[in-house]
C-alpha cells in the first residue's frame, strides 16, 4: 500500500469543494428559503407584543426601543439555527446511507457543516435587510453597542457552533432510537423559549434566571444579543465566555462519544 | 362482471427545459402536450374469470386498473364493474373489490399483520365468526403459519406480499385486481402466489384481473390474456396459442468459458446477438431442450439458460409488425 504524502493544503481544498457543492444544492432551494424565513417570524410577532407592553407601562427595565433591538436580533440569530443535522443524520443512519459516507476518508461532520453554513448564508440576504430596516425604522439601532463587535462575533460564532453540535448529538441518537425528531422539538423548547426567544432572560423569575445562565441555552441565543445591546457587565463577560467555552467543549466531547459508541453499534447491527 | 366501452385516459404533461433559463421560461409559459395513457379500451370480462393484462412498462396497465377500481376518473368512455360505476366509489362497490399493488404496502410496517387485519375487520364490518374462519383459511392457503404474528418489517418481500393478499381477501371481494403482484419476488415466491390465486379462484369464483410485465405470471394463471401496448388493446384471447404460432422460438442464453466463433453456433438456431462470451440464440420450442443439451456437450459452456422471449419482443414482433389487432382463431 502506498503512503500518502502529507498535504497541508488538503483541508482547504476539501473545504472549498464541499462549500461549492453545498452552494449549488441550496441554490436549487431558493424559493424554499423565502418560505422558511417567512415562517420563522415568531420573534417579530413577539417584538410587537413586547413593544405594546412597554408602551402600556411607563417604566420598565426595557424600553420599546430595547425590545425592538432585542427581538430583531433574535430574529436574525434564530435564522442561523441549524436545521440540517437532525433530519440528515436520521436519514443517513436509519436508511443506511451512512455506510456510503463511512467509506469516504472524511468524517460526515464536515460535509454537513458545509451544508449548514450554506443554509445560513442563504438566509442572510433576506434576514439582514429586514433587521437593518427594522432597526432604523424603530430607532433601535441607537441601543446597539457597536464598539463590542469583536466579542459579538466571537459570541455568535460560539452560539452557532454550540447549537449545531448539540443538534448533531441529537441526530446521533438515531443510532439507538427509531425516531429522533422528538429530541429536536425538545431542544427547540429549551433553546428558544428558555434561551430568550420569547422574552428576555432578564425578565424571568430569579430562580429561573440562575438556572438558565448556567445552562447551554443562554449561549445559543441570548448571550450574543445581550452583548449587542450592551447589557453584559464586564465581569459578567468573562463568566459568560467561560461558560460558552465549557459548553462548546462539552458538546464536542459528547459528539465524539456518541459517534464512537454509535458506530460500534451500527457496525454490529447494521441499520 | 367487468365491462368497458371506449375507455380512455388522457394526461396533460408539462415539459420543462433544463437549467435556470428553462425554469424561468417555464414559469411564464408552460409547454404542454397530451399523453394518451389508455385509448379506446373495450373489454368484457365475465364472473369467475382469471384474466391476464399484459404489456410493456408504461403501456397503460396500472392506469386501466385504477380506472376499474375507481381511483381514477376516465377521460372518456364508460366502465361498469359488478354493476357499479367505479368512479362513484359507493360503499357496495368498494366492499366487492380489492386492489393489491405490487410495490405499495397497505399493511403497517411496524406491527404484525394480524393487528392490521383487525382494523380491516372493523372497516369492512366482518362478523367475528366469519373473520376467524376466513383468516385461518387464508393463512393455510398462503402457507403463512405464524408469520402473521411477526412485524411486517421482519418479513421477506415474498412473505409480505402474501400478507398483503390475505389482507385484501378478508372481506371476500368478488373482484380482485392485482397490479404487478410478483414484481421483485424470487421464483419460489412468485410460484406460490400464482398457485394461491388459482386455488382461490377455484374455491370462491372470484374474478381476477392481474397485470404484469412478466409473461410467466400471465401464462401460468390465465387462459385469457389482454395485451395492451401504447395504451391500446392489441390482443384479447388465448395468448399461449398465439405465441406458439407466431413466435415459435425460445431463447438460449449461453455464457461460454472461452471465445467461440459465431459460425459454430449457427447450427443450433438463429444467432440473435453475441457479446463477448455471452450469446443469445433463438431456437424453435420443440427442439430447444435437445439443442441445449447439444451445446453443453460440444462447446465449452460456463452457464446456460432457456428463456421465454421478453414480452416486449413478442409484442414487437407479433403485433407491431402486423399493426393489426390479432383475433384469436
Amino acid at each position, binding site marked *: 500500500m502506498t503512503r500518502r504524502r502529507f498535504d497541508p493544503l488538503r483541508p482547504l481544498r476539501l473545504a472549498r469543494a464541499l462549500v461549492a457543492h453545498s452552494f449549488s444544492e441550496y441554490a436549487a432551494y431558493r424559493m424554499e428559503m423565502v418560505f422558511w424565513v417567512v415562517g420563522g417570524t415568531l420573534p417579530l410577532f413577539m417584538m410587537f407584543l413586547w413593544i405594546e407592553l412597554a408602551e402600556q407601562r411607563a417604566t420598565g427595565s426595557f424600553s420599546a426601543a430595547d425590545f425592538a433591538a432585542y427581538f430583531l436580533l433574535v430574529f436574525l440569530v434564530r435564522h442561523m439555527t441549524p436545521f440540517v443535522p437532525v433530519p440528515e443524520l436520521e436519514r443517513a443512519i436509519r436508511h443506511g446511507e451512512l455506510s456510503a459516507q463511512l467509506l469516504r476518508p472524511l468524517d460526515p461532520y464536515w460535509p454537513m457543516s458545509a451544508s449548514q453554513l450554506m443554509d445560513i448564508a442563504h438566509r442572510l440576504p433576506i434576514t439582514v435587510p429586514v433587521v437593518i430596516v427594522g432597526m432604523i425604522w424603530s430607532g433601535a439601532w441607537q441601543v446597539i453597542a457597536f464598539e463590542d463587535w469583536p466579542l459579538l462575533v466571537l459570541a455568535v460564532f460560539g452560539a452557532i457552533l454550540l447549537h449545531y453540535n448539540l443538534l448533531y448529538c441529537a441526530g446521533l441518537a438515531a443510532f439507538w432510537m427509531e425516531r429522533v425528531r422528538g429530541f429536536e422539538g425538545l431542544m427547540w423548547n429549551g433553546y428558544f423559549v428558555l434561551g430568550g426567544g420569547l422574552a428576555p432572560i432578564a425578565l424571568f423569575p430569579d430562580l429561573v434566571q440562575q438556572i438558565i445562565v448556567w445552562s447551554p441555552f443562554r449561549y445559543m441565543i441570548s448571550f450574543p444579543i445581550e452583548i449587542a445591546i450592551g447589557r453584559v457587565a464586564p465581569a459578567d463577560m468573562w463568566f459568560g465566555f467561560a461558560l460558552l467555552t465549557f459548553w462548546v467543549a462539552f458538546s464536542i466531547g459528547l459528539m465524539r462519544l456518541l459517534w464512537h459508541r454509535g458506530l460500534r453499534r451500527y457496525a454490529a447491527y447494521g441499520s | 362482471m367487468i365491462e368497458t366501452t371506449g375507455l380512455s385516459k388522457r394526461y396533460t404533461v408539462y415539459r420543462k427545459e433544463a437549467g435556470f433559463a428553462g425554469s424561468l421560461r417555464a414559469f411564464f409559459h408552460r409547454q404542454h402536450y397530451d399523453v394518451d395513457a389508455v385509448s379506446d379500451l373495450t373489454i368484457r370480462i365475465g364472473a369467475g374469470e382469471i384474466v391476464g393484462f399484459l404489456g410493456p412498462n408504461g403501456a397503460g396497465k396500472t392506469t386501466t386498473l385504477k380506472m376499474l377500481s375507481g381511483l381514477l376518473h376516465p377521460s372518456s368512455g364508460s366502465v361498469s364493474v359488478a354493476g357499479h360505476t367505479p368512479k362513484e366509489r359507493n360503499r357496495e362497490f368498494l366492499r366487492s*373489490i380489492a386492489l393489491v399493488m405490487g410495490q405499495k404496502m397497505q399493511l403497517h410496517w411496524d406491527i404484525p399483520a394480524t393487528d392490521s387485519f383487525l382494523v380491516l375487520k372493523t372497516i369492512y364490518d366482518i362478523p367475528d365468526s366469519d373473520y376467524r374462519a376466513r383468516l385461518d383459511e387464508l393463512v393455510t392457503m398462503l402457507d403463512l403459519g405464524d408469520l402473521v404474528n411477526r412485524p411486517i418489517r421482519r418479513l421477506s418481500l415474498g412473505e409480505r406480499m402474501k400478507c398483503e393478499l390475505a389482507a385484501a381477501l378478508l372481506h371476500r371481494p368478488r373482484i380482485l385486481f392485482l397490479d404487478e403482484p410478483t414484481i421483485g419476488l424470487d421464483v419460489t415466491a412468485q410460484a406460490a402466489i400464482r398457485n394461491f390465486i388459482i386455488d382461490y379462484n377455484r374455491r370462491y369464483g372470484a374474478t381476477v384481473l392481474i397485470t404484469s410485465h412478466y409473461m410467466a405470471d400471465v401464462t401460468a394463471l390465465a387462459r385469457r390474456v389482454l395485451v395492451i401496448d401504447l395504451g391500446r388493446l392489441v390482443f384479447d384471447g388465448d395468448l399461449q396459442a398465439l405465441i406458439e404460432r407466431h413466435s415459435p422460438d425460445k431463447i438460449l442464453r449461453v455464457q461460454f468459458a472461452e471465445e467461440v466463433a459465431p459460425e459454430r453456433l449457427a447450427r443450433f438456431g438463429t444467432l440473435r446477438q453475441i457479446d463477448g462470451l455471452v450469446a443469445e440464440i433463438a431456437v424453435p420450442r420443440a427442439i430447444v431442450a435437445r439443442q441445449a443439451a447439444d451445446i453443453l456437450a460440444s462447446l465449452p459452456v460456463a452457464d446456460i439458460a432457456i428463456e421465454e422471449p421478453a414480452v416486449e419482443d413478442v409484442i414487437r414482433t407479433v403485433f407491431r409488425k402486423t399493426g393489426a389487432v390479432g383475433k384469436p382463431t
Partner: protein
Amino acid sequence: MRVLRLLRSFWTNALQVELEFRADLLVNLINAPLMFGAGLAVLAAVFSETSSVGGWSFDEAVAVLGVFLIVDGFVGTILSPNLGRLPEYIRLGNLDYMLLMPVGSHFQVSLRNLNLWEVPNLLLGTALIGYSMLALGRVDPATIALFLLMLAAGLTTAFALWSIIYTSAFWFVRVSNLEVMFRTLVDVGRFPVSALPPWLRLLLTAVLPVAFITNVPAEAVAGRLDWTTGWLALLIAAIALAVSHLFWRRAIASYTSASS
C-alpha cells in the same frame, strides 16, 4: 355507532404501533414539563413589571397558557400524526388504499392515528386551567361546561384550519412552511390577545381565527366571555369544518381525475 367502533379500532391499532417506539415516551416526559415550565417562565416575564397585561391578571392569563398547551397537545396527538402525514400518504400510495376502503377518506386521513405520547401536554394544560379556576374562585359546573364547549369549538376550528393547510398538499409539494406559519400564529396566541397591537389583534381574530382557538376558552374560564363571542366561536367552528370538508372533497376529485 359505526364511527365509534372505527375510532376504537383505529386507535387501538395506532397505540400498538406507538408502543414500538418506547423512546418517544421518554422524550415526551422531558419535553412536556420543559414546555410547561418554560411557558410559565415566559408568562412570569410578561407580568414581571406589571400586574395587568391587556386587562388580564396573571391568574387569568394562566388560563390562556393552559389552553395553548392543550391545543399543542391536540396537535401532537391527533393533527400531526394524521393530516400531517398526508404528503407522505400521497407519495407512498397509502392514500390510494384509503380511497379503496368503504369509509370516508377525510375521516380516515384525519383520525386514523393517535400519538399517545403527546398526552402529557394535554394534561399539563388542563392542570393550568384547573389552577386558574381555583385561583379565580370559579370552580362551578357552569364555568366548566362553558369552558368545555368553547374548547371543543376551538379545537374543531384548529382541526379545520390544519386540514385546509394540509389538503393543499395535493397542489403544493411542501406544506410544512404553511404549517410553520400557522404554528407561529398559535404561538403568539398563548398570550391574551388584548395585549397585542390592534393590527395583530385583527390578524388573529378576523383573518385567522387563532384567538378563537386559544383565547376564547380561557375567556370562559375567566368569566370574560360575552354572548356574541361565544356564539361566534361556535359559528366559526361549524363554518371552518364545513369548508375543510368541502375543500377535501374538491382535492380528492382533482386527485382522481389527474393523477396517474
